[in-house]
């Protein structure tokens, strides 16, 4: 088993003022993905090399000849984030360059769907790299198409509100669970609306060795159709409803890192989002049942039963 160093818990005051993912990028207002990039770079620092596949981050952060990155930034293709960063690590190692944070930041489509083969390979080999998925729950860069990570019922441009069927028919693919089963040294779920929790996990990922996987909930006002001022609130409601859970798996030991004080109905979470506005009562019930199962899985059965509507 690979040892994970015990980091001190970061506070906002510990963060450097210097931005390594700078302002001036072209992300939409309220973009969760850009919040992740900025926060992650504050933790990882200058001795870092970043790769991202074809995704929003590539386009809004690095359109030639401009760049928001003050660290080296590499892009090759869409489905190979985990493989390219494996190569970057090997390249540095072969040249005797230790201690560089090799980080891949990819969207949910590039991770959960087309990039899963490379991701699984990297996890199985326990490559010494950090993989961060910013989960905005659809192919946002190409115009809001459904991905494996899109939640049940959500409207996307490929799960339209049709006259016969409306919204996504499948439930969200549980990538963190699948990757945890590869028995990697460090895995965490986080959200851009829970910055202290996110910072602690980024710091742990930075200090661990071997393959590290973070899946960060990153709301997309453009694709989810909500007010751009509500990105953080969406994160909080997602976690409080049980649609998203904050936990980590450190050397096989699973730990919930934030437990909501009170469970809110899933309807409260989906209501401000245009992507769910067509949802019928039956569909909301189905989604609530899925959430309840997850709630029980992470927080225990009795809590779930106590909050049943």
């Amino acid at each position, binding site marked *: 088993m690979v040892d994970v160093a015990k980091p001190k818990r970061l506070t906002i005051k510990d963060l450097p003022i210097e931005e390594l993912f700078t302002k001036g990028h072209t992300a939409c207002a309220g973009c969760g993905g850009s919040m992740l990039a900025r926060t992650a770079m504050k933790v990882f620092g*200058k*001795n*870092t*090399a970043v*790769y991202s596949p074809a995704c929003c981050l*590539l*386009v809004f952060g*690095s*359109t*030639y*000849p401009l*760049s928001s*990155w*003050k*660290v*080296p*930034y*590499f*892009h*090759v*293709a869409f*489905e*190979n984030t*985990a*493989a*390219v*960063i*494996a*190569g*970057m*690590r*090997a*390249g*540095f*190692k*072969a*040249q005797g*360059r230790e201690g*560089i944070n090799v980080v891949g930041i990819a969207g949910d489509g590039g991770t959960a769907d087309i990039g899963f*083969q*490379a991701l*699984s*390979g990297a996890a*199985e*080999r326990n*490559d010494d790299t950090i993989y961060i998925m910013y989960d905005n729950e659809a192919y946002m860069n190409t115009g809001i198409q459904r991905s494996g990570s899109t939640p049940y019922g959500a409207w996307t441009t490929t799960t339209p509100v049709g006259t016969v069927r409306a919204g996504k028919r499948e439930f969200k693919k549980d990538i963190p669970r699948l990757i945890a089963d590869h028995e990697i040294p460090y895995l965490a779920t986080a959200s851009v609306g829970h910055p202290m929790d996110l910072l602690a996990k980024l710091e742990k990922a930075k200090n661990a060795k071997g393959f590290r996987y973070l899946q960060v909930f990153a709301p997309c006002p453009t694709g989810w159709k909500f007010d751009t001022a509500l990105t953080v609130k969406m994160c909080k409601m997602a976690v409080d409803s049980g649609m998203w859970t904050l936990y980590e798996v450190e050397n096989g030991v699973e730990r919930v890192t934030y437990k909501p004080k009170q469970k809110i109905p899933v309807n409260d979470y989906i209501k401000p989002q245009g992507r769910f506005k067509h949802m019928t009562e039956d569909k909301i019930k189905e989604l609530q049942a899925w959430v309840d199962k997850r709630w029980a899985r992470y927080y225990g059965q009795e809590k779930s039963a106590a909050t049943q509507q």
Partner: protein
Amino acid sequence: MVFKVMTGDYAAALSAKVTRAQVIAAYPITPQTLIVEHISEFVDNGELDAEYIRAESEHSAMSMCMGSQVTGARSYTATSSQGLAYMHELLFIAAPLRLPIYMAVVNRTLAAPIAIWNEFNDTMPERDSGWIQSYAENNQEVLDMAIEGYKVAENDNVLLPMMTGLDAFILSHTVEPVDVPDQDIVDKFLPKFKAKFGKIDPDDPMMVGSFTPPEYIMEFRKQTDTAMENSKKVIREVTKDFAKTFGRNYQGLVEEYRLDDAEVALVTVGSVTSTSREVIDDYRKEGKKVGLLKLRYFRPFPVEEVRKVAEKVKAFGVIDKSVSFVSGGNIYQDMRAALYGYNVPIVDFMAGLGGRDIPTTDIKKMLDITMKAAKDPKSVKPINWIATRGC
């Protein structure tokens, strides 16, 4: 200097070792498997000090090579057929990003029908990827082309990736004596790679592979085109140096054989060249003025060299092991393009597809047809399927 008997695959594996590849990422596919097996042995026996990533696919293997090469590490991979096709997308990215990766490709049939024997239908369609493309005639050249290849690919005026084809089974699994050069001589000929331009290094941050609008793309394309053009001169110089250093003179992008007073030239690529030399010798004994032009490089296409030969011969016969349906073989097409405006007939011979043997009798037939074309071009079909039932 020591002669060893080895397969073409062993020679390819050995080439990664003698060129001191720093990162190797590969995925097994018949008939390339011996390469990855031998490299595994070299690395795990401590004979080769390299990072070796056992990739979970060819797509990832090439992605890894791009990741390692961009940090400045000399990177190596090997594949074949379907594996190369699976890398296709990335080949077109590696070249404009100017990553001088080297790859051995065991030339195998691209399905369907699925088969594992020799054909060039895997590499030839990648001719437009921006990779330099060379083909080995024998196992010695498999080893030598990697030494030559890195030296060409890593040249400041080139910086393009390079793939070398070796014929499935005919070379990959057949043993031949190979002169293994001393390591210190190779080290002197091929010093350590130092990335000077687009690279990923936290001490010198830059962006490589960014999203690029139309205002800039044309210039990137032209630069890749210029680099490929530059590679011709570099290949000619490197083969000269190679001859001086290792005593084997490969002449440059092409090798001429008995062409000085030849009336027809047979154009070959890969192992069929050796068989063809025998036939040329036989015909010469009979007083027939035939010669051979071996293309060592297909990209860049040796236009100048081919035109020089066109000045002296009366017809070309081309052996093609890949087909662009109805349009003939890929070598034939490039010969036609190179010789536009030259009044020399070019006859295409589709042969050896799917690994079918090309015996000396077939090569004689091709030479006979080419000699006929030299006298009366209209009497000969431009594209001829050799030893094919129903043709």
